[in-house]
């Protein structure tokens, strides 16, 4: 048995288990964490974090890095290990990845729980993981120096080896791991000067690619336990509806069916596989008590929202004297905007595997929210959170859906496991997933704006209507300030343009449709609204849209930097575009990162065709430039799908759309060329998973205006109007 440093009894079992498998060094440490700039407001300086365990070094010199964030495509299984390996001086070619179990030690340094979201993974781990790596390196060098009887200062570490150049000696980390594990934790842990980085900042291939290319990557749906049953649930066709009565006689007779159970969310059919479960579910006869949700119809809701947008709301931001601003106006414009509910529609439909025993519950699922899910599961199972184990698989896309603040899919699966008393896998069909709610909220916005005689904006009044994502969830306290859900107004209340008289107001109506964060959250709607209206003001002022923005953005801001870079790279105002093509531009900041996008657009048979997108981003110091490019490409595609196609609508409480035939993501032939230009920066890293999404819809809408003189103020874009 190797000597393992542990500080926390609850962690002991995990570490013993791990070390027994591989041997060697387990790095644990006690570190009052410095938090990233993005979380400084929430950080409690007195808070002392529990010990961490992120590295295991085996005697064969392979290194396993335990990653405490969920890999959903955004590249954290590569970018986070890069930060740690940089300081550890590890041989990158021998790095293995393991997903972290649920434990306080793996909490997000800003959120105080295990959670992947808000484009914060790199930013919140930047200090933490480099220090973990540096601690490991210091201990290994110390162990080598002691073994050789030489001063530590004469030893150096590289490629998972410690070398003493004076004597020509070297030892692998694997050979030093046992001795290093017996040393006390270092007190001082200096970090590298960025100019000495070998990995950070270099384009680096994803560590998860090989498994995703040969089919071996395990997603939640790929987990099979012995004697496991597959469960499909018939849920209410109307949000908030309940089972009144049901008849399962026909369903029970289907081959392969092992039971039909009423559960809180509906009627569950357990069978030997997906197909018998699905076939049997179709034969259920259920009478629903639909409740007030049955009154919801999109056309009516839209009219109600737009009417509400003309009423005074809760004030999210106010500057100057809005009434005087409008009184002094030279020219005035007002507009309504409508944006629909959006499904995340990740390629992997939701699913959860549960093995519930009397004193223990094991869960396998692709979740972004381990701590909340574990608490919810424990509550349902009547267990302590420590008795619930969550194995985080690869996520076949997350986009926010798999961080449900009500833990909807995990909670439901444990309810089913309780009823069935066998290992189960709850599978959502695509239709279940599409109609399962937890959508990006539907929004209506009203903006009134005025310009002065010189064209500069004088007054701006923006009223937003849409459900609060965090109302009535455990996160309400953190994210609702003075009656304003900050995620509802982000990107609008943070409007960067210098406008002397400005007011942003919010209405947060409630209804039965569950809503949730969807890639870029509030920014997914506010960027479209504000960046198309700013464009409108530029035209009203008879000025170039890029020049106009540069003139009214704060001097020396990152907005200007990315806007100028995108304009330069696109040849804005200079490059001769093919006949029938036009550029449109938008710039937006979200999750600490600034992104400008210029879209080259034409109309083909009256349909919008996006040929090329030139993006410029500033996300602080870049860990993996190739990862940044991937994420900006990805964010653009996600936003473009919503701009051109995406809408979830309701008719008498029922979701009209059901599958990819009527909720259409962007397809191959619609994909524009994408160029990503990264601003070199030495600032603290900021988000990149989401910030590529917000600017694309307004950039395309502004290009369509340049082409046609028609303003698009509704998403998805009304392309019929362009013919």
């Amino acid at each position, binding site marked *: 048995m190797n000597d393992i440093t542990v500080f926390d009894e609850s962690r002991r079992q995990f570490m013993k288990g791990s070390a027994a498998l591989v041997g060697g060094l387990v790095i644990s440490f006690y570190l009052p964490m410095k938090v990233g700039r993005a979380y400084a407001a929430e950080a409690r300086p007195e808070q002392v974090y529990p010990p961490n365990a992120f590295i295991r070094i085996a005697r064969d010199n392979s290194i396993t890095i335990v990653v405490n964030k969920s890999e959903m495509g955004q590249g954290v299984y590569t970018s986070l290990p890069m930060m740690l390996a940089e300081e550890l001086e590890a041989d990158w070619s021998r790095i293995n990845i393991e997903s972290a179990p649920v434990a306080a030690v793996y909490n997000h340094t800003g959120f105080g729980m295990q959670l992947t979201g808000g484009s914060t993974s790199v930013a919140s781990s930047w200090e933490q993981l480099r220090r973990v790596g540096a601690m490991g390196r210091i201990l290994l060098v110390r162990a080598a120096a002691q073994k050789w009887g030489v001063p530590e200062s004469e030893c150096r570490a590289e490629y998972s080896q410690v070398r003493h150049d004076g004597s020509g000696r070297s030892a692998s980390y694997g050979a030093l791991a046992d001795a290093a594990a017996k040393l006390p934790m270092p007190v001082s842990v200096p970090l590298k000067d960025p100019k000495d980085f070998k990995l950070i900042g270099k384009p680096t291939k994803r560590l998860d690619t090989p498994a995703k290319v040969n089919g071996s990557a395990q*997603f939640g749906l790929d987990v099979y336990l012995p004697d496991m049953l597959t469960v499909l649930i018939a849920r209410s066709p109307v949000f908030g509806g309940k089972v009144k009565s049901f008849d399962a006689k026909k369903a029970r007779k289907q081959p392969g069916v092992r039971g039909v159970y009423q559960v809180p969310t509906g009627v569950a059919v357990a069978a030997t596989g*997906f197909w018998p479960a699905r076939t049997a579910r179709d034969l259920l006869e259920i009478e629903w008590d639909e409740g007030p949700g049955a009154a919801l119809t999109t056309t009516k809701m839209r009219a109600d929202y737009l009417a509400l947008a003309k009423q005074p709301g809760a004030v999210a931001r106010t500057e100057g004297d809005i009434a005087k601003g409008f009184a002094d106006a030279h020219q005035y414009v007002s507009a309504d905007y409508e944006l629909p509910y959006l499904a995340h529609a990740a390629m992997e439909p939701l699913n959860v595997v549960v093995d519930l025993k009397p004193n223990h519950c094991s869960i396998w699922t692709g979740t972004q929210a381990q701590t909340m899910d574990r608490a919810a599961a424990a509550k349902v199972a009547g267990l302590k959170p420590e008795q619930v184990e969550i194995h985080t698989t690869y996520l076949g896309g*997350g986009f926010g859906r798999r961080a449900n603040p009500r833990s909807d899919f995990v909670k439901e699966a444990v309810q089913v496991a309780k009823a069935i008393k066998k290992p189960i896998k709850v599978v959502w069909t695509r239709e279940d997933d599409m109609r399962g709610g937890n959508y990006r909220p539907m929004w209506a916005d009203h903006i009134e704006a005025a310009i002065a005689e010189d064209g500069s904006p004088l007054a701006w009044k923006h009223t937003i209507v849409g459900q609060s994502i965090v109302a009535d969830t455990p996160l309400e306290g953190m994210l609702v300030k003075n009656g304003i859900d900050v995620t509802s107004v982000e990107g609008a209340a943070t409007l960067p343009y210098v406008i002397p008289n400005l007011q942003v107001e919010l209405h947060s109506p409630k209804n039965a449709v569950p809503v949730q964060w969807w890639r870029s959250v509030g920014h997914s709607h506010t960027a479209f609204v504000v960046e198309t209206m700013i464009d409108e003001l530029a035209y009203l002022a008879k000025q170039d849209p890029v020049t106009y923005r540069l003139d009214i953005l704060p001097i020396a801001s990152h907005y200007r930097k990315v806007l100028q870079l995108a304009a330069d790279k696109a040849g804005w105002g200079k490059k001769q575009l093919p006949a029938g093509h036009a550029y449109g531009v938008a710039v937006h900041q979200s999750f600490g990162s600034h992104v400008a996008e210029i879209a080259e657009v034409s109309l083909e048979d009256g349909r919008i065709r996006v040929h090329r997108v030139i993006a410029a981003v500033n996300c602080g110091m870049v860990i993996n430039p190739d990862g940044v490019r991937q994420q900006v490409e*990805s*964010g653009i595609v*996600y936003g473009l799908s919503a701009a051109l196609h995406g809408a979830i609508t309701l008719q008498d409480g029922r979701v009209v759309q059901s599958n*990819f035939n009527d909720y259409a993501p962007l397809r191959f032939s619609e994909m524009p060329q994408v160029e990503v230009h990264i601003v070199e920066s030495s600032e603290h890293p900021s988000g990149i998973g989401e910030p590529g999404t917000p600017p694309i819809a307004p950039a395309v809408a502004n290009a369509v205006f340049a082409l046609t003189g028609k303003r698009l103020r509704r998403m998805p874009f009304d392309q019929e109007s362009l013919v």
Partner: protein
Amino acid sequence: MISFKLNGNNTRVDADPGTPLLWVIRDHLHLTGTKYGCGIAQCGACTVHLDGAAIRSCVTPVSSASGRNVTTIEGLAETSLGKAVQSAWRDVDVPQCGYCQSGQIMAATALLRGNPHPSEAQIAAAMEGILCRCGTYNRVRAAILQAAAQPGEGK
């Protein structure tokens, strides 16, 4: 009992003949590289080869595989073309979440088998049915072009 060759191995399954091949591959045989995405042939995540042609296993009854050759992502590396495509995929670093990638790779390999040097338009036509929510399409194209440029293999 239904018999077919799966990745070169004789396979017999006791399944209702109407069961989609996808669920036989996954639930009966526990080969999980082939994915469920939509169940109605809209997304292509379930793409496998039936006698070398790309098909949607989610809408193909297992009975129609009887006596034929089924290849999944797990068996793709058994041909030099399959290897070349997977190698191009790694080289271009195509996947993000990765869930659709088995389907992308199976469709791309079937394309290149029938048309070793496809034009960009032919690539678009062949890949139009395979959805990716992460937006890897440009890298998919780059990987296909790279695999197509591999010299002199017995494709």
